[in-house]
């Protein structure tokens, strides 16, 4: 099977180049990651990240024939030859298919991706009704592979300011959690014009998500919540004026 793979070693190469490989695969090689490991047996200078090999860790996300995805869950039989592999776009390349995800995780950290609850911890778990728990479905499954964020043009052009689909979906995951008490704070945190509103529903994120999640919908729900917040603030402000004028 033929492959064309992006190569760049900053210690040696002045600029990146594409290297062709023609590799004989075994019957057991079903997924793209199997083929990449076969190539790595032939050329151990090729760098890539991988870990769980079953679409859970999100390490081996890369650009596969022009579309971001996970090598371990991409079937070889679905790919056109030569298979063109590049690192995920929009992030600095460390080497070959390995990108520097610092920016991605900085945005992730900025949305405080953890439960904020100031009540004293109960003796058992903080309970949720089945209905409240169901609100987290389609949100908590994100594996932070970065495929969505790095396929988003708004992130390409505003990587320092736009949180990106993965970070925003995690922001909504905690807004939607009945045990969280920091909704207002979380919404205020996203108010700067470029943090949330740079999303223009391009939907690349939905198209590429290997877990079939919908970050675009989560972002739309955050915008709805922000609108509700503004209306509530308006009502409070109005009441304040009425009291003052009495």
């Amino acid at each position: 099977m033929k492959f064309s793979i992006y190569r760049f070693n900053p210690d040696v190469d002045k600029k990146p180049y594409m290297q062709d490989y023609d590799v004989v695969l075994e019957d057991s090689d079903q997924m793209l990651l199997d083929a990449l490991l076969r190539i790595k047996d032939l050329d151990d200078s090729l760098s890539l990240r991988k870990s769980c090999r079953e679409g859970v860790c999100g390490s081996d996300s890369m650009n596969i024939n022009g579309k971001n995805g996970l090598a371990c869950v991409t079937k070889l039989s679905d790919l056109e030859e030569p298979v063109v592999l590049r690192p995920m776009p929009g992030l600095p390349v460390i080497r070959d298919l390995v990108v520097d995800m610092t920016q991605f995780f900085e945005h992730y950290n900025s949305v405080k991706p953890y439960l904020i609850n100031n009540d004293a911890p109960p003796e058992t778990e903080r309970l949720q009704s089945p209905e409240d728990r169901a609100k987290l479905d389609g949100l908590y499954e994100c594996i932070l592979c970065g495929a969505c964020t790095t396929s988003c043009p708004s992130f390409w052009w505003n990587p320092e300011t736009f949180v990106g689909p993965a970070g925003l979906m995690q922001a909504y995951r905690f807004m939607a959690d009945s045990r969280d008490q920091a909704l207002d704070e979380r919404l205020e945190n996203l108010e700067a014009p470029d943090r949330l509103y740079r999303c223009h529903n391009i939907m690349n994120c939905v198209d590429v998500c290997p877990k079939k999640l919908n970050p675009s919908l989560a972002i739309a729900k955050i915008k709805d919540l922000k609108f509700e917040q503004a209306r509530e603030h308006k009502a409070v402000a109005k009441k304040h004026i009425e009291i003052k004028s009495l």
Partner: protein
Amino acid sequence: MMTKLLTKRYPGMRAWLMQRLTALIMAVYSVMLFIRILILQADSYEAFLDFFQPSWFRIASWLFWISLSIHAWLGIRDVFKDYVPNMQMRSVLLKILVVLLWVYIAWASWLFVRK
């Protein structure tokens, strides 16, 4: 009050809301325009002048134009923010856009006001 709140506390939401509001106005007008075209079937210059004669339709058309201008300003401003990283160049382009939109608004206003 709402405007003040949105401007000071919600600068990001203001543009987003404005884009949706203007889109809604344009959508309603477009449907209305299509229905009027179907009903009146203006097939000559005179008929076309009559088509735009009623005051209510002129006001609606003017509102459509204002909405289009605001919508275009917000959209093109974002495009410039994305694709023109040079701040001086972006500033010049935004100024040109503002002048152009105001000229179009003035022109459209004159067209809709004159008898």
